[in-house]
């Protein structure tokens, strides 16, 4: 039986292949294969202190290390009944915006854009599109700089901790962040216009179910304690198991998730579909210019959604910095109890990330980490199937493998992330 195979999807984090089995010009079977080596993180945090666990888990994935740190801290603080003051939450939000700007601009300019402009990589694009590449690098560097100031390093910074921060950034550093956000605002607008100007293939279009965290106030954002679902439901994060339903499959060291037996989508496209109306200012204008009903069917528009999120962060940062400058540094809060269990959640750049912890007498005794890319795999397989069916039927000259790869890349998968999750009783 003929097989269309992409051995290794390029320009994603980690290793994933695409395997499409065809019978008489019809798709028989689709697999997104993941041969990542397992690292068993859920077992590594056992018998560690909450602080040590929060140091270990960001190593699941470099590209969303801040989100892993925040999800761990959120889960552990809920488990140990630690209430942090608004200043701590504001500094965490700033750090999180840093990761969003970095990860989204890495994806938009270095990982996604070469497909649309017909290049193998972003460095090669400098022959004709040096402006785009340099703009992407400027934005990316700024995101990294925010993380360096707030978390102590671009990747795997140890400054944020359970209960707060070890070191509070000084006034000069905060003002640097504010000034740079203002300076780069036109770059954010350019990013949106660039992504809006591209031609998006349509062969994979199919209705999607979306999920994302609901911010507690009526704003756009990346944190919350309940999940909005495009079916009209809203469920507390404590019901994360019923919303994800992980199962082991043979062709992948990453598991698969379904909601009510159907694939679902988390990430920037889900956030824009569910929360886009909450945007303000230039981000809101950009959203209104870009958004159409295609956004509920075509996963490739996630790249536009990422660009709008960059703009949202650049616009939100100055006010957030002002808020931080107006409040004194917050002290690290101690746990109210030594034992407890709870789930924490944040929106990682690529979607909702859940970290569940059980703590017994000051040591972690159980953990379950559910990663956005894992939640998206079933939808990726679904869209690859639809694209393959459409393109085979049309007997197209299009580069069918490139379309498959573009579908996977649109989810900006973090494959090493996805390969390490489980329940421990």
């Amino acid at each position: 039986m003929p097989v269309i195979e992409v051995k290794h999807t390029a320009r994603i984090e980690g290793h994933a292949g695409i395997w499409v089995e065809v019978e008489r010009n019809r798709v028989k079977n689709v697999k997104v294969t993941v041969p990542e080596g397992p690292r068993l993180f859920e077992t590594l945090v056992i018998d560690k202190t909450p602080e040590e666990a929060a140091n270990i888990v960001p190593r699941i994935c470099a590209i969303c290390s801040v989100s892993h740190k925040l999800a761990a801290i959120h889960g552990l603080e809920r488990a140990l009944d630690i209430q942090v003051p608004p200043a701590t939450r504001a500094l965490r939000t700033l750090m999180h915006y840093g990761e969003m700007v970095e990860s989204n601009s890495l994806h938009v300019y270095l990982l996604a854009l070469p497909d649309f402009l017909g290049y193998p990589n972003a460095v090669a694009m400098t022959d004709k599109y040096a402006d785009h590449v340099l703009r992407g690098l400027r934005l990316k560097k700024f995101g990294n700089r925010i993380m360096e100031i707030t978390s102590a390093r671009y990747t795997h910074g140890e400054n944020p901790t359970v209960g707060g921060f070890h070191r509070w950034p000084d006034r000069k550093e905060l003002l640097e962040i504010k000034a740079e956000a203002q300076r780069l605002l036109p770059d954010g607008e350019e990013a949106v216009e660039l992504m809006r100007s591209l031609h998006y293939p349509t062969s994979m279009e199919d209705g999607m179910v979306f999920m994302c965290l609901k911010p507690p106030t009526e704003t756009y954002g990346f944190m919350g304690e309940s999940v909005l679902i495009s079916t009209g439901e809203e469920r507390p994060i404590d019901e994360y198991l019923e919303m994800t339903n992980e199962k082991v499959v043979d062709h992948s060291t990453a598991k698969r998730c379904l909601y009510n037996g159907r694939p679902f989508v988390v990430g920037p496209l889900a956030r824009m579909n569910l929360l886009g109306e909450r945007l303000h200012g230039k981000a809101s204008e950009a959203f209104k210019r870009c958004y159409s009903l295609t956004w509920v069917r075509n996963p490739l528009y996630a790249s536009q959604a990422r660009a709008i999120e960059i703009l949202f962060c650049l616009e939100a940062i100055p006010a957030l910095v002002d808020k931080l400058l107006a409040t004194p540094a917050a002290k690290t809060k101690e746990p109210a109890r030594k034992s407890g269990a709870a789930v924490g959640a944040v929106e990682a750049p690529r979607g909702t990330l859940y970290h569940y912890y059980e703590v017994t007498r000051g040591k972690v005794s159980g953990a379950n980490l559910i990663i956005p890319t894992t939640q998206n795999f079933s939808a990726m397989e679904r869209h690859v199937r639809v694209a393959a069916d459409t393109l085979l039927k049309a007997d197209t000259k299009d580069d069918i493998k490139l379309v498959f790869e573009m579908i996977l890349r649109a989810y900006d998968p973090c494959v090493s992330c996805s390969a390490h999750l489980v329940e421990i009783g």
Partner: protein
Amino acid sequence: MSGKPRAGFYNFSGCSGCLLTILNCEDNILDIFGAAQVTSFLMANRGNIDDRWHGADRKAGKEANLDVAFIDGSVTTREQEAFLKEIRERSGLVVALGICSCYGGVQAMETGRGSFARRYQKVYGATPPAIVEAFESKPLDAFVKVDHYLPGCPIDGKQFLHAYARIVRGLPPELPKTPVCTECKWRENECLLLKNELCLGPVTAAGCNARCPSNNTGCVGCFGPADERNLGSEVSLLKTRKFNLETIERKLRIFGGARFSESFKKLLRK
């Protein structure tokens, strides 16, 4: 090496943070890609000569030969082991990037305790995915000769740039042999051990510019063991600060894995 050296960048089991650190050198990324002929960098490039686990495209022939292979991540499957050996055969130099490839990484913290099969089953159940044959995380030099080691979790961007500039010119990298304490003193930080905080700075390789102590928190040891370390002295010191052996070993194992646990065992025998 005549002309531009041929370089390949690969990742095995890890978080890709060391390759990301290279992409995070925003001011130098064009120079990095300009200084060598990069034939493989799956995370950043489509159409690499060797996109496949099972080695270079045979048709590629000489095209697949490398002057230097940079490898991020540890080895945790038979498939990776075979690919690593194949890369070694066609590479002049192999450079380990980060503590996963140097020492096994955080995923090797349980090394030597014989718990892998039990932990693997706990994560994947009785019927694990057939796609790989997995084992306890091992560093690259458990299987092949490694020419240079750049530690860190992740590697430090500046240290990488300095080392890369030398390696692509056929020179060995110059890495600090001293522990984090040296850099911490240069930054004029107050010693956290004097404040009874558990800090692994005295035994951990320098290279990060003492980031954690400069942020009021003890070094977690993410650059792995320093060449010039005195583990015995560190352990005695920590014991006088009321930290027990179990706590000290646990902290050392998180990033030092097997490396530290061996030294630790020797220490306990003394």
